[in-house]
């Protein structure tokens, strides 16, 4: 079977989302038995094949937790306590460890934050990509080398890189090799956690371009996690804005840029450093996110929000459609007053 046949078979175009996250709630245990870190609360979104959703928010808002939850790759202290992750119609939260191992990398794979350490220093790139191919038996043994070289070429690396050790590659090369490894089993869903963070600006653009090209070729759904709003706008069809474990706004990238409905989103846009604007206009958001071990009852952003009223601190606003559009959701009592 050729690659394209294989691809067509695996990713028949469909409107059915490949991933549907419903009310995902993930907590981390702490040393104190009575308190948990509520890292992600009631997060919902969908992704279809060939489509990308970008999760944005500042550090510690639960983006990576959501990403790891999708892959069921949380550290031992973390667990999904509520909600569902429907992948290709099946709820992954109900899977046993053994079953999830068959999905991991084979159908859902991930590009991790910090690609500098994505590879084991004492093993060649070939060995490490081959391991994934062998584990999921996606290519016959005698064709694995060929596949690895093909993958490396797809990410603009010399096929000879296969025989190199990680320390012999530059940061950008390692990141590309990590991408090659992530798509090695032709996944249906790719989670990219801060794929460009440690790279210089030129390489960042290249890597993002590459992800889009690969998505076009392989037709996988993509969840891109980043705190770099500018970068994420470029690659995403939809944007989900996260704050302190909640998803506070979700819409198409265009809508959210033109007409944000949550004050936090508006502030995020205001904080983008744009060379065309004088630095004085770059806003910062005063204050810090709440302690997720003991988050406030109401809107978690209320403390830092200019528009906040008593209502905001008293109860959590519903995550509901705004602007007469069912596609643009936000959790704010004062959406009409939000302006950029």
């Amino acid at each position, binding site marked *: 079977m050729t690659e394209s046949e294989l691809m067509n078979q695996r990713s028949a175009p469909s409107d059915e989302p490949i991933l549907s996250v419903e009310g995902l709630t993930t907590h981390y245990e702490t040393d104190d038995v009575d308190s948990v870190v509520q890292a992600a609360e009631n997060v919902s979104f969908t992704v279809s094949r060939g489509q990308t959703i970008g999760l944005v928010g500042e550090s510690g808002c639960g983006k990576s937790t959501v990403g790891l939850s999708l892959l069921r790759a949380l550290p031992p202290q973390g667990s999904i306590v509520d909600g569902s992750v429907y992948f290709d119609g099946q709820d992954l939260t109900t899977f046993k460890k053994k079953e999830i*191992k068959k999905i991991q990398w084979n159908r859902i794979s991930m590009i991790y934050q910090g690609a500098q350490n994505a590879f084991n220093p004492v093993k060649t790139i070939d060995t490490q990509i081959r391991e994934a191919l062998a584990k999921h038996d996606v290519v016959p043994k005698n064709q694995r080398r060929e596949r690895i070289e093909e993958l490396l070429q797809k990410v603009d690396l010399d096929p000879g890189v296969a025989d190199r050790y990680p320390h012999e590659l530059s940061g950008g090369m390692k990141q590309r090799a990590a991408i090659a490894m992530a798509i090695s089993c032709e996944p249906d869903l790719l989670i990219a956690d801060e794929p460009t963070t440690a790279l210089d600006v030129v390489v960042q653009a290249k890597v993002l371009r590459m992800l889009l090209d690969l998505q076009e070729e392989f037709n996988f759904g993509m969840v891109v996690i980043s705190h770099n709003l500018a970068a994420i706008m470029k690659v995403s069809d939809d944007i989900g804005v996260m704050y302190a474990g909640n998803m506070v706004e979700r819409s198409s990238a265009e809508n959210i840029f033109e007409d944000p409905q949550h004050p936090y989103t508006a502030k995020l846009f205001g904080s983008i450093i744009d060379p065309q604007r004088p630095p004085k206009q770059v806003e910062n958001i005063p204050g810090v996110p709440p302690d997720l071990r003991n988050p406030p009852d109401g809107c978690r952003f209320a403390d830092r929000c200019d528009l906040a009223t008593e209502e905001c601190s008293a109860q959590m606003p519903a995550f509901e459609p705004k602007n007469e559009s069912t596609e643009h959701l936000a959790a704010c009592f004062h959406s009409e007053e939000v302006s950029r």
Partner: protein
Amino acid sequence: MATTESKSEFLVRRLGHFTVAFCALLVINFAIPRVMPGDPTTQFVGPGFTEEARQQMLEQFGLNEPMWEQFLLYLINTLTGDFGLSFSRYPTPVFELMMERLPRTLFLMGASVSLSVAIGVPLGAFGAWKFGQRQDVLITQGSLFFRSIPTFWLAILMLFVFGYLIPIFPLGGVSAAGTEYTGLLDYLADLIYHSVLPIVTLSAYFVAGYTFLMRASLLDILPENYITIAQTKGLSDREVLFRHAVPPAVLPVITQLGFQIGRLVGGAILVEAVFSYPGMGQLMFEAVLARDFPLIQGTFFLLTLTVLTAMLIADLLYAFLDPRVGGS
């Protein structure tokens, strides 16, 4: 951190280190007995020991010759493998004395080190894998206990319990007085029987070192991204541990092993003393007490040369196992 050095350049550089260290060893080895207070005649000092007799003795041992002459002689002899005759057991050759002790020491230390690596490395890996859990706490506390108690005290305790209270092992030595062996097998069986307690004592101490080293090394590796990735690649816990975590974690253990292999020929003075085990440690101790210059030089030379060689081998092995050392 890309290195520009090739594997062969690394080899040459490392051999260079070895040569320099070897020359230093030759000099220091000659100097040490001579800078120690006293000389071979010291132990005879007493009412009947005249200055005349002392001078005669020094003359006989060649210690009245000028220093450079002594050094030259020592250098030539050492490099041709001639360690001379022992002063305190005159005229037994030093080489013969060492060869009598060496096999026993090699056996004692070899068994202890192998045993402790075989137990300590997996134990440390297991502890790290179960970090913070009951098994880990048990391993850590146990290792700390055996690392902290003095070996000679443990040796005495072992003797008291397994040699006296429950007399299943001999109280010391390597053979009962007057034993005649019918063959090699017979000899070995008796050697093992006499070595069990010293080996267990030494191992208890060594194991802890390897356990701690492996545990710490693995704990450094486990939070690495590539371990998480290996897990999400679909590998089982066992595969992740043995294929991805242990190989890089075991590298420091190899360096440590290099140090310890050197000690194989040095023996363990304290433990050998408690068990009256006639090994290299005891021989060295006696040589120092008697200011037996040739014997000190011979035993120290053998010890340091083994350490140097073992370190060289460990480094080369390290370069072979870790691609980051010496680019390809």
